[in-house]
């Protein structure tokens, strides 16, 4: 399988197999005009199988969202055809505007202007809670 190399953009690597499509959708990559490749089930020494996303445009990337979905990925930043940074993504301590609180009793359900903010309360279990009502974020959101 041949995919053109990137001039300016990103390679999101080491995505656990199966999460690539979810990340693709959450990052809104389906709305971009540039070349985007989602490669699934690539052989990996570390993971066995992995997904990779290549984006051929220097768009604004929400690293918190990537960290929330899969904290172990790496993002390679490519400029003028060269790798300029290999960014390790960690689980963000707080995420804003990535997921929405689904608790109908939460203040965010009535105050539309309020940013939906979640804080990491259990790094081991990957659990985030709404800062307003403490409702657990559903991973399926």
């Amino acid at each position, binding site marked *: 399988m041949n995919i053109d190399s990137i001039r300016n953009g990103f390679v999101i690597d080491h995505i656990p197999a199966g999460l690539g499509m979810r990340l693709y959708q959450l990052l809104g990559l389906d709305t971009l005009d540039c070349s985007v490749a989602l490669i699934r089930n690539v052989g990996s020494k570390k993971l066995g199988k992995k997904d990779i996303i290549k984006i051929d445009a220097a768009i604004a990337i929400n690293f918190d969202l990537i960290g929330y979905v899969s904290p172990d990925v790496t993002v390679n930043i490519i400029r003028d055809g060269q790798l300029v940074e290999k960014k390790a993504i960690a689980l963000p301590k707080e995420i804003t505007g990535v997921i929405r609180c689904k608790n109908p*009793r*939460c*203040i*965010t359900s009535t105050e539309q202007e309020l940013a939906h903010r979640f804080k990491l309360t259990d790094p081991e279990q990957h659990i985030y809670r*709404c*800062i*307003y009502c*403490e409702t657990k974020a559903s991973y399926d959101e």
Partner: protein
Amino acid sequence: MRNLIDIKDLSTEEIEELIAVAEDMIANPKKYAEICHGKKLATLFFEPSTRTRLSFEAAMYELGGNVLSVSSAGSSSAAKGESVADTAKTVSCYADIIAMRHPKEGAPLVASMNSTIPVINAGDGGHNHPTQTLADLLTIWREKGRLENLTVGFCGDLKFGRTVHSLISALSRYSGIKIVLISPEELKLPSYIQKDVLAANGIEFHQTTDLLEVMPQLDILYMTRVQRERFFNEEDYLRLKDSYILTPDKLKTAKADLSILHPLPRVNEIAVAIDEDPRACYFKQVLNGKYVRMALILKLLKEAGTL
């Protein structure tokens, strides 16, 4: 700006300090009678409440201060669609401290993020009610002389009961605490509180549906009301509302020095006959609530540099 949104905002040392000040206020009321002269408390109550609002207002008057009051959402700008943030910014221009009750969880936190004066959470939906917890802790302290080494039973609605969640969270920081959770299956303590609060702090706890079985072990029995306003479905409310009714008969096996607490209002979950029992502490709890709110208002105004 220092606020009280969650009981965990206060360290155990600060809780002990508030208890000590409240005790001093009970012993020497004249010393505090004018201490907040010229200061204003805004009570913003967007959900029905009698005792908590009156308790805050009585507390401020007993400190020599004044009160500005909104007692329902319908009579405020919230009815016109004003946001909590804007309300907080506006009230900051009029008052020195805010006590807010709101049906939506997290509303007092939003107010505190936008206010230039201290905000006290006076109850946000089914979430938190930290000043009730302070009243509960002062009552336990005054009845037992300690906050450690107690077996505390919580009975009734442990799912939506915000006073239960806050008190469990507060007690989990003391040593030798054993918690007994007595509720119907549908109203059990949320699993995240069991895990993140009780298990995380190594607190021994036991769940049961049988109040009589555990009665002899208890030092404190914290009764709660099944709250109609927390249910989306009237049928569920009617099915569960009479799950536990405390009667003199059920107290036969209880310890002689048991303390029965209830955040009030009660509907029928404690028989009126129990009011005469020396173990009934719920009206003392109401009075203690006023004193501990006085201590809290004083502390937050001092820390804000207003006093």
